[in-house]
């Protein structure tokens, strides 16, 4: 026991004492916030720079739909469209000249409105930005409004009232109803889920690699042999996993406490208008305040999160340590660690679809797979409410996975730690596991 503590102590102190630990602990949250929120922020800023308006509108409807469209599009759409009114049989010629204008980069594209558009069926667009989702959505909405206005006018409604009748922009405010109650601001909770899962994923990946490297170092410097002449390889493995785990936990706790302090002291100062729903109602991008407001968990959920973190850490740490014992150099490790990395990446790949439906079939299935659950379940816990029994079963699955991973890892570690030379084949690995 004292020896296990000595191993844990060394693994812990050797990491915590480095400059990198200090830097990562201080600036890690900023970094995570930046890489998780930057894309969202950039996407929201993108609205101002789009080019939906910088087009030629070929109007063959004969009733001035293009003018209504330009009005519906507004001024903020990146320039006023050029309207070309043509007869239905002259569309082809107008398209040719519009194509030339696009090629000459005077315009980004052209839109063709004809009788089918008036009938509410279709319009055609061709342009360089045909793949830009925001531009196309904007054009589409503007066309809908223009057609609606044209139809309303056809029923005899005064043109002066058209604008107020057609400008509809309803925002759907989402409250989540669960067994335990009601939570506001589903959108920001999604974001919180993403944030928590992404953080976990990054920690597992970074510290997994860290363990892998440290085993390779012990192997290549041959210090492993001195150590296992005093303690069992199992003790060394366990001490390493627990020691490095304690480092990760320290970091997460520092971040968690500072997030709480920032959340309770700083955010109210930054966002005096209120939290969560208010910002969403303004239609702006969700800010840090929204995320932190979403990350206000019940104690039970916090404990579950912590358990998933610890178990997930042990699972991946054991796997990476086993890989480290198999190889002789970091170059070899890159290949050999691929299966483990794939297990980890699998959970990251499914983050997006799970967020779309956090209680769907895929989300629930992946919550019971030992290697995806440590990321998927916290994601769901943060994003939605999960029945207690699912949490319990998921934890049990991860715990069983942990025991299996430790068992296999210990056997590979015992043999591999003193093996040099050729990397073992799968058959040889199986023999190690049998005979260790």
């Amino acid at each position, binding site marked *: 026991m*004292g*020896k296990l503590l*000595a*191993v844990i*102590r*060394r693994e812990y102190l*050797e990491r915590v004492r480095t400059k990198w630990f200090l830097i990562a602990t201080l600036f890690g949250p900023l970094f995570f916030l930046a890489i998780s929120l930057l894309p969202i922020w950039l996407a929201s800023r993108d609205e101002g720079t789009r080019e939906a308006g910088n087009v030629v509108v070929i109007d063959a409807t004969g009733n001035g739909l293009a003018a209504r469209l330009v009005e519906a599009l507004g001024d903020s759409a990146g320039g006023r469209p050029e309207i070309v009114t043509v007869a239905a049989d002259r569309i082809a010629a107008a398209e040719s000249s519009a194509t030339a204008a696009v090629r000459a980069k005077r315009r980004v594209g052209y839109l063709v409105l004809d009788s089918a558009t008036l009938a509410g069926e279709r319009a055609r667009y061709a342009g360089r930005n045909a793949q830009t989702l925001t531009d196309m959505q904007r054009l589409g909405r503007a066309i809908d409004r223009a057609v609606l206005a044209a139809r309303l006018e056809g029923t005899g409604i005064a043109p002066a009232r058209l604008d107020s009748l057609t400008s509809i922009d309803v925002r759907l405010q989402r409250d989540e109803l669960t067994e335990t109650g009601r939570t506001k601001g589903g959108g920001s909770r999604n974001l919180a889920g993403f944030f928590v899962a992404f953080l976990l994923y990054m920690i597992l990946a970074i510290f997994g690699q860290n363990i892998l490297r440290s085993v390779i*170092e*012990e192997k290549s*410097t*041959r*210090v*492993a*042999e*001195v*150590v*296992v*002449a*005093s*303690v*069992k390889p199992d003790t060394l493995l366990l001490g390493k996993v627990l020691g490095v785990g304690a480092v990760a936990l320290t970091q997460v706790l520092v971040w968690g406490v500072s997030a709480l302090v920032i959340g309770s002291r700083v955010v109210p100062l930054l966002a005096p208008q209120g939290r969560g729903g208010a910002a969403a109602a303004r239609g702006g991008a969700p800010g840090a305040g929204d995320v932190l407001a979403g990350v206000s968990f019940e104690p039970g959920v916090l404990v579950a999160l912590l358990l998933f973190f610890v178990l997930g850490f042990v699972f991946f740490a054991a796997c990476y340590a086993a890989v480290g014992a198999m190889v002789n150099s970091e170059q070899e490790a890159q290949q050999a660690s691929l299966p483990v990395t794939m297990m980890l990446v699998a959970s990251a790949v499914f983050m997006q679809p799970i967020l779309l439906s956090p209680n769907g079939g895929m989300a629930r299935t992946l919550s019971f797979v030992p290697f995806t659950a440590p990321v998927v379940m916290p994601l769901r816990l943060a994003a939605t409410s999960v029945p207690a029994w699912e949490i319990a079963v998921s934890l049990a699955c991860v715990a069983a996975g942990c025991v299996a991973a430790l068992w296999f890892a210990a056997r590979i570690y015992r043999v591999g730690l*003193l093996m040099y030379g050729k990397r073992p084949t799968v058959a040889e690995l199986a023999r190690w596991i049998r005979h260790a």
Partner: protein
Amino acid sequence: MTDLAIDVRGVSKSYDQHVAVRELSLQVPRGMVYGLLGPNGAGKTTTIRMLLDIIAPDTGTISLLGRPHGDRTVLDKVGYLPEERGLYKKMKVREVLRFLGALKGLSQGDADRRIDAWLERLQLKSEAKDWSTAKVDELSRGMQQKVQFTATLLHDPELVILDEPFSGLDPINAQAMKDTVVALREAGRTVIFSTHIMDNAERLCDAVCIVSRGEKVLDGRVADVKAAAGTRAVTVTFDTTPEGAVLAVLRDPALVAQLDVQGRKVELETAPGADASRLLAALVGAGAHLESFSRVQPSLHRIFLERVGATGVEAGMTGHG
């Protein structure tokens, strides 16, 4: 309490198709310096790793200091220097030694006191320069070996196991290593070391075990081993390196069974049936000028070559050191 520091009985170990150690038994009494001799690949390192319970034997039993294997507390009384030396490169010298000491059950206070004593003794700590606060990779290779050696002996082990302790040492450090082995014996400790350098073994060891291809060739006290090797060994010193008729006599299989010409000095073994006086007469008859002619006990080196044979020795391994 048994008087055996090491008791190995019928131990075998195979890897895949390759047998590393076969039916090995050896007993090392306490307070002895014991040499485990053999060419590379003879199974010395495998044997030592089994002694330390780093790898498990397929068959057979091992006890250290009277305790059967499985009782790992006995390892706290064992010091081990592996053939491939290595320490945590990014750690400070004192931290490494404290850690390795803690693994042997040393408290930090005890460890610090002993670390200071050892580092001062090995000139790694003085008024001018204290290397204990330096990182391991800032030390020269020789200094790193001293630190490693300190780690082996820091907890004052009763049994010291050294795997090829002289490999990679410069002559000064090699001498320091020999002095330490002698000092350990004087302090009543048991030392077992593996080597293929017969000179060191002959000078330091009370008893030896020669292994080849995983099997014991012979073992026993050095004096007994030499006596048992017979009295047919002869050392001749000529005034010049033997050639011509003199060399022809030395190469006559009726007179000489084994020959090792080392310049003017020649070690040989007379053929069965021929005795030393017949050889002497033949040499003189061939016109040899002799400085000395003596019947001797064979050196361990000779016994090793004879018993292990050319087949057991890998290319480039002569046993000279």
